[in-house]
């Protein structure tokens, strides 16, 4: 009994934190999602599934998110892996720290400002102008799904690089020698040793970037020009502009549900890939 009570006391801070920061807001959103919009906006208590029935009205936002978030994650992975590999395996230790800091440097400026920079790069006087000089006319980049993809990959790349870097850096380089000693070519050593052993980093990076991308709204708003919007943009609109809290809550709950399913399936898949080891965690 005493043991139990002591555990209770020790768990209390974390418990309260979880309750206040996670459970309560979710419960509020959950209850709101069954309500109705008041005449002047906001929330009127009710018990109706009307809001959920209305979901198809926001189908485009879900479609964009569910296409661009996984695609962005994959693109970030494909770009981040070689970079992390270079930093962890190939780069001389003398330069490593400097280069690692350079990966974080963009974080020192607001993503808002950096996204505006991309408006210029992708806009009429940026890359399209350069393409025109070599004879490729009429290329529109800004306000397209491609622009949003570039924006999110750019914005979240460091979050992918670091976990992969850590797992590659931890990798015992003698294993690579052992593989070579046993007759494996460098390429086969990469597939058979390096890649499987960096799975934890890849899994963490993908998870981190994917979850954040699912809730993204700033980059689509800036680089999508109102044409390519995410669920996040729909939520901003529903809560702040049209003040339809009930419908907004239903959209939010649906997103939470989709994420729960995806992440669970993903974790199952990854843990099978990495054997029965429990070193695959979020951080």
């Amino acid at each position, binding site marked *: 009994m005493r043991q139990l009570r002591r555990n209770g006391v020790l768990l209390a801070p974390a418990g309260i934190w979880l309750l206040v920061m996670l459970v309560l807001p979710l419960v509020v959103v959950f209850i709101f999602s069954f309500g109705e919009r008041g005449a002047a906006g906001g929330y009127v208590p009710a018990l109706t599934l009307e809001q959920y029935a209305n979901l198809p009205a926001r189908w485009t936002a879900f479609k964009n998110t569910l296409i661009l978030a996984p695609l962005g994650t994959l693109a970030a992975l494909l770009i981040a892996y070689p970079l992390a590999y270079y930093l962890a395996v190939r780069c001389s230790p003398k330069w490593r720290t400097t280069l690692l800091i350079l990966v974080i440097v963009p974080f020192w400026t607001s993503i808002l400002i950096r996204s505006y920079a991309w408006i210029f790069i992708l806009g009429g006087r940026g890359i399209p102008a350069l393409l025109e000089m070599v004879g490729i006319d009429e290329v529109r980049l800004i306000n397209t799904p491609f622009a949003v993809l570039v924006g999110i990959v750019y914005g979240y790349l460091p979050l992918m690089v670091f976990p992969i870097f850590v797992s590659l850096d931890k990798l*015992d380089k*003698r*294993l690579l*020698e*052992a*593989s*070579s*000693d*046993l*007759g*494996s*070519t*460098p390429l*086969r050593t990469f597939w*058979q*040793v390096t890649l*499987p*052993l960096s799975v934890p980093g890849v899994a963490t990076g993908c998870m981190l970037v994917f979850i954040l991308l699912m809730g993204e709204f700033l980059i689509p708003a800036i680089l999508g020009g109102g044409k390519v919007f995410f669920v996040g943009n729909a939520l901003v609109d529903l809560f702040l502009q049209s003040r339809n809290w009930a419908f907004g809550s239903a959209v939010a709950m649906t997103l939470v549900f989709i994420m729960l399913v995806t992440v669970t399936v993903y974790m199952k898949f990854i843990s099978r890939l*990495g*054997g*029965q080891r429990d070193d695959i965690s979020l951080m």
Partner: protein
Amino acid sequence: MSAAVRTIAEFRGLTKTFGPVVAASDLNLSIAEGEFLSFLGPSGCGKTTALRMLAGFEAPTEGEVLLDGEVVNHVEAHNRPVNMVFQHYALFPHLSVFDNIAYGLRQRRPQPDRATVKQKVEKVLEIVRLEGFGPRRIWEMSGGQQQRVALARAIVNEPKILLLDEPMAALDRKLRKEMQIELQTLQRRLGITFVLVTHDQEEALSMSDRICVMNGGRIVQVGTPRELYDNPRTRYVAGFVGTSNFFDAVVAEAGPDHVAARLAGGQHVRGKPGFAVKTGQEVCVSIRPEQIALSREAPDAGMSEPVTILNRIFLGEHTEYLVRSGTLGDILVLVPRQSELNAGTFNVGEEAFVSWDENALLILEQ
């Protein structure tokens, strides 16, 4: 080495430098097929570099590495018919014991079929006494078991030479003894050439057919354990292979079998030369502690010195005395139990005489 024995590997003027550091300098050595050769020396003596050049992990700066009569300087590690047991095993943590051992077989092109791989892996698992451990994960194995897996992973490939980089360093003393015997038995049974790197003289002495003593990137002496113990060439070898007493001396008269030398204290001694000496040369006189006799009376013949007993340590089959001579300094003497039973023990502070046979004295390079 008799002429009938084939040379499996050879170093010719092998030098390796890392920037300004000379890790190995002008190594010349030939390794006979089927022998158990050890590179012995303190850390940083170049023994690991020598092994890594043989494995193909380091390219020599100068000189040649020959395997089976062919220069392999530019043959990469994955194309060399040698396998290594790494110091900390370097087993693949994401693979099972079976897959670790099968790794080398599966790199072959054309790839052997499943049945062959299974049969070969199971055979080596039996050799290293790990039957049934195939499906285990690496981190479920103890240190000693991991070492056997590492061994199995290397020998399953039937290498021309098995390289062992301090394989016993991570094991406790008892397990190390067991593994030493096991390795030696295995080597005789498989007939594979073993090349071991170690800093442990006991390990080298007990396991090897031949030992290559290294120091400061150079090979100091190569020979059987007995040769190195009985006829070391330099003071370094005599001190590294066993223990010895050393006295500075100058050669008074150089003969082919015996050399007369004058010790720092003025005494004249005669001994066997370990190398070609010249009159007037400064040398080192060495005598093993067990070849010195301790007595109460000065013996009639031979060389003797009056000493005072400084310390006595009872070691069971031997008693170790530290004695001080007025002219020669401190001397270590090992008295066997039997002679002590005959002559009685000496107490600290007692006066006595040390004496030796002149064949026991070695004249060595400084």
